[in-house]
């Protein structure tokens, strides 16, 4: 075999092969069985443990459009979970670039639920079931201030409504009324919530992070500081599956759609890595 030629293969051929590995499973979908990691299940259980009568789910959407494929399905899956359990959902954003994306996600998930609703009680209403608090800089300030008063640091919501005039905000005052904060991010915001909010106010914290960040957060899951975690698109797909299995909420499961492509791409990369190493050692022996 001509190992030298293999080592000098044009990188563009590799890119093209990778594109095919991603596109083909999308065009010809195959259903793969997916194991659910313990950290994802723990996060699901933590949201399940919220008491809808007196607590809410706070989703801190701290991502920008660059990581939309990984983080956006996490936010939607969490909203679906909250709506299915009738847990009030509060959403805030620590980074400004992602703020309109969240508005889009809220509209989409509310639309899915309301399309099936038969009465006002069944419906998801803004102000009663969900509030989008919007963006308030710098991150450390809202994280700390929400321990005292959420309406104090977010006097107006994203749409310009007075937050203290919204139905759900009359009973949700601060972290004492928050069942869990789930920070969805490509950065370190779950750790900020652990360091600033959990140590001072004792609120539970969960994470939805890009795969790159996941190794940083596993130690915090091991110590119980993070109640659970969704790691990358795979974590989002696992959460989507857990919510779908239990509540049949419907709607588009975007992370699950990409899992076959993800597996195909990983197999291809493993093949490349093995071939590259074999060729390298074969060439070294030859020389």
């Amino acid at each position, binding site marked *: 075999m001509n190992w030298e030629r293999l080592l000098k293969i044009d990188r563009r051929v590799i890119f093209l092969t*990778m594109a095919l590995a991603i596109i083909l499973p*999308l065009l010809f979908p195959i259903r793969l069985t997916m194991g659910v990691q313990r950290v994802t299940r723990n996060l699901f259980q933590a949201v399940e443990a919220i008491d809808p009568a007196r607590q809410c789910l706070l989703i801190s959407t701290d991502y920008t459009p660059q990581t939309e494929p990984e983080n956006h399905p996490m936010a939607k899956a969490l909203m679906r979970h909250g709506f299915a359990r009738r847990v009030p959902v509060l959403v805030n954003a620590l980074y400004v670039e992602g703020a309109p994306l969240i508005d889009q996600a809220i509209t989409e998930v509310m639309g899915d639920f309301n399309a099936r609703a038969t009465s006002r009680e069944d419906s998801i209403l803004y102000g009663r079931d969900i509030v989008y608090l919007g*963006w308030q800089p710098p991150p450390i300030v809202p994280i700390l201030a929400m321990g005292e008063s959420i309406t104090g640091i977010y006097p107006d919501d994203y749409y310009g409504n007075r937050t203290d005039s919204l139905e759900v905000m009359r009973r949700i005052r601060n972290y004492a009324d928050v069942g869990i904060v789930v920070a969805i991010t490509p950065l370190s915001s779950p*750790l900020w919530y652990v360091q600033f909010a959990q140590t001072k106010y004792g609120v539970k914290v969960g994470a939805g992070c890009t795969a790159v960040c996941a190794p940083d957060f596993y130690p915090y899951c091991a110590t119980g500081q993070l109640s659970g975690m969704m790691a990358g698109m795979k974590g989002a797909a696992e959460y989507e599956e857990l919510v779908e299995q239990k509540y049949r909420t419907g709607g588009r499961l975007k992370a699950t759609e990409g899992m076959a492509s993800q597996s195909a791409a*990983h197999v291809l990369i493993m093949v490349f890595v093995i071939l590259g190493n074999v060729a390298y050692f074969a060439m070294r022996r030859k020389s």
Partner: protein
Amino acid sequence: MNLSTDIWVWVGVFLTFCIYSFLYRDNPFYKFGEHLFVGVSNAFTLSFMVHRIIIPILVRPFTEAWRTAGSEGLSAGLFNPYAPSNFLVIIPGVIGCFYFARFIPGLTWLVRIPIALFMGYYVGRSVPAYLEGSVFPQMRGTMLTQASFDPAQGGILGGIFALLVLVGVIGTLTYFFFSKEHKGVVKWGAQTGIVFVMVGFGASFGFTVMARVSLAIGRFIFILRDALGIVT
């Protein structure tokens, strides 16, 4: 095939191809996409900052306080920092403006004031929080205790993992201990450490690959589903 009729979807497709064209080689389309992204991001952040922060938190309280003072005269309420209209907001406003002093020769020293306040606040807040939220709990999590073998923590297997973590931490710290030559026991410790460091790098690389592939999948789903309507 069910082509999208939304013009913005096609703008998205065009920009996606502009950026991915870099995989072939650097070219004007890539440069266009890159510059557009930087420009739009900055403009969006700036306009959002002006309309959502500077006007409601700085300009509006001050102008309303000014109007009230003009019609009703000065009162103590106009100097209450918690009041919706007050004059005190001008203090952080002026301090913030000192950032621009770096453009005025002779007054550049003023920029030190907001930087010092900013750094002082963050260091004061962050150091205790970091120790309390990260360093101490993580050190506690590394300790091997009887609780590590608790059935609720995984029993014997949980204990073995806890031992592995302890060995990994000590080995890695030994590897990065440069005050003593790596000989004898220290050498064994360092060599154990390097194994853990390599496993850590491998895990990080695997996760990074997964993340980058996910981003590519997101774009392909957008093109094939949202734009071309080929996949359902």
